[in-house]
C-alpha cells in the first residue's frame, strides 16, 4: 500500500517541521503568547522592532518569555510605509538578532494595510543585495508576485484578506495561480480568521501559513493555537492526498444492486 509522507518545509535554506508561523502581536500578555506558541508547535515567530522605552524600564520583554535560541525570530517591518524605512528597520533587526531571514512588509495606507507593492519590490531588491533572506508580504496579484520573486527573495507571502480582518481567503483563484507559478515557498500571510481558513490555505497548496490575530483575538488563544496546528497538518495532508473530483450529481456510496424488494 502506497503511503505518502510529508517532507519538511525549506525556507531560505533552513528546514522546518512545522508549516505554521505564529505572530507575537495583540496577545493580552507575553505569558499567554508563550503558551499559545507552545500549543501551536510553530518554530518560527514574527516579531516587530520598536524603540526602547526610556522612561519605564520595568515593562516586560518579549525575549524573557520567548527564547530566540529556541525559536526562529522573523523580524518584520510592520508600520513601514516606504522601502527606506523598511530597509533601515531590518538593518537594525539584523544587528539585534544576527539573523538575515526577515519578513518584509511595506504598507500603503493605515485603513487597509494593503502592501505597497512598488515599495515592497524596491525594498526586496535592496535587501537581497545586502544579503538578507527576504520573506515578502504581498498582494494576491500573480503578476506582482512574479516580479517580486524575480528580485531574489526567499518566499512569497500573499494576503488572504486585509491584516487582522479575519475574513479568510477572499480570492482562492489568485492564491492558486500564485502557487502554480511560484518557484519559492508560498506562505499565506494575512486575514485568516479561524482554523478552517488555515486548512483551506494548505489545501490550495500553500507551503505554510502565518497566523496572528486569529489566535491572539480568539476568546481562548491557547486552544485556538492548537486548533491551527491541527488545521495546518490536516490541510497539508488533504493537499498531499489529492482530493476527489467534484461532480454535479450524486454518486451512491453503497451498491445499488441486490436491494431487498421495495414491493
Amino acid at each position: 500500500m502506497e503511503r505518502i509522507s510529508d517532507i519538511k518545509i525549506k525556507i531560505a535554506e533552513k528546514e522546518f517541521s512545522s508549516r505554521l508561523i505564529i505572530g507575537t502581536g495583540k496577545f493580552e500578555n507575553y505569558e499567554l503568547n508563550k503558551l499559545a506558541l507552545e500549543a501551536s508547535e510553530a518554530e518560527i515567530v514574527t516579531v516587530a522592532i520598536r524603540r526602547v522605552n526610556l522612561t519605564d524600564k520595568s515593562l516586560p520583554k518579549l525575549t524573557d518569555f520567548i527564547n530566540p535560541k529556541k525559536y526562529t525570530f522573523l523580524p518584520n517591518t510592520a508600520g513601514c510605509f516606504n522601502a527606506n524605512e523598511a530597509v533601515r528597520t531590518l538593518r537594525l533587526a539584523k544587528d539585534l538578532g544576527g539573523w538575515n531571514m526577515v519578513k518584509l512588509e511595506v504598507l500603503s495606507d493605515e485603513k487597509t494595510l494593503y502592501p505597497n507593492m512598488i515599495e515592497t519590490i524596491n525594498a526586496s531588491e535592496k535587501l537581497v543585495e545586502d544579503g538578507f533572506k527576504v520573506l515578502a508580504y504581498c498582494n494576491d496579484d500573480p503578476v506582482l508576485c512574479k516580479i517580486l520573486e524575480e528580485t531574489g527573495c526567499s518566499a512569497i507571502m500573499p494576503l488572504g484578506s486585509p491584516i487582522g480582518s479575519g475574513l479568510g481567503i477572499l480570492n482562492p483563484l489568485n492564491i492558486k495561480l500564485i502557487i502554480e507559478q511560484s518557484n519559492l515557498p508560498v506562505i499565506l500571510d494575512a486575514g485568516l480568521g479561524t482554523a478552517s481558513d488555515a486548512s483551506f490555505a494548505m489545501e490550495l497548496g500553500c507551503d505554510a501559513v502565518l497566523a496572528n490575530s486569529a489566535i491572539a483575538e480568539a476568546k481562548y488563544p491557547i486552544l485556538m493555537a492548537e486548533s491551527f496546528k491541527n488545521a495546518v497538518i490536516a490541510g497539508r495532508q488533504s493537499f498531499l492526498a489529492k482530493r476527489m473530483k467534484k461532480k454535479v450529481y450524486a454518486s451512491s456510496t453503497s451498491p445499488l444492486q441486490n436491494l431487498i424488494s421495495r414491493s
Partner: protein
Amino acid sequence: MTEKTIQVFINGKKKSFSENNNLVSLLNILEIDGNGIAIEVNLVVIPKSQYKNIIIKNNDKIEIVQFIGGG
C-alpha cells in the same frame, strides 16, 4: 574647568549629556541593558563591538531599539 554639555536626540527625545561619552557609558547613564538592543547613530547601525569607540556628539540622532510582539 567646567565640562561642556551636549544635546542629543534619543528615540526622538532631546537629552543632555556631558561630552566624551561613548555608547557604553550612554547605556549606563540611561540604565539600559546592552543585551537585546540595537543602536543606530545618524542612520548608521553601530555593531555592538563598536559601542566603546563611538563618542556621542552634539545633535546626534540616536535610535535604541528592541524586539517586541508583532505579526
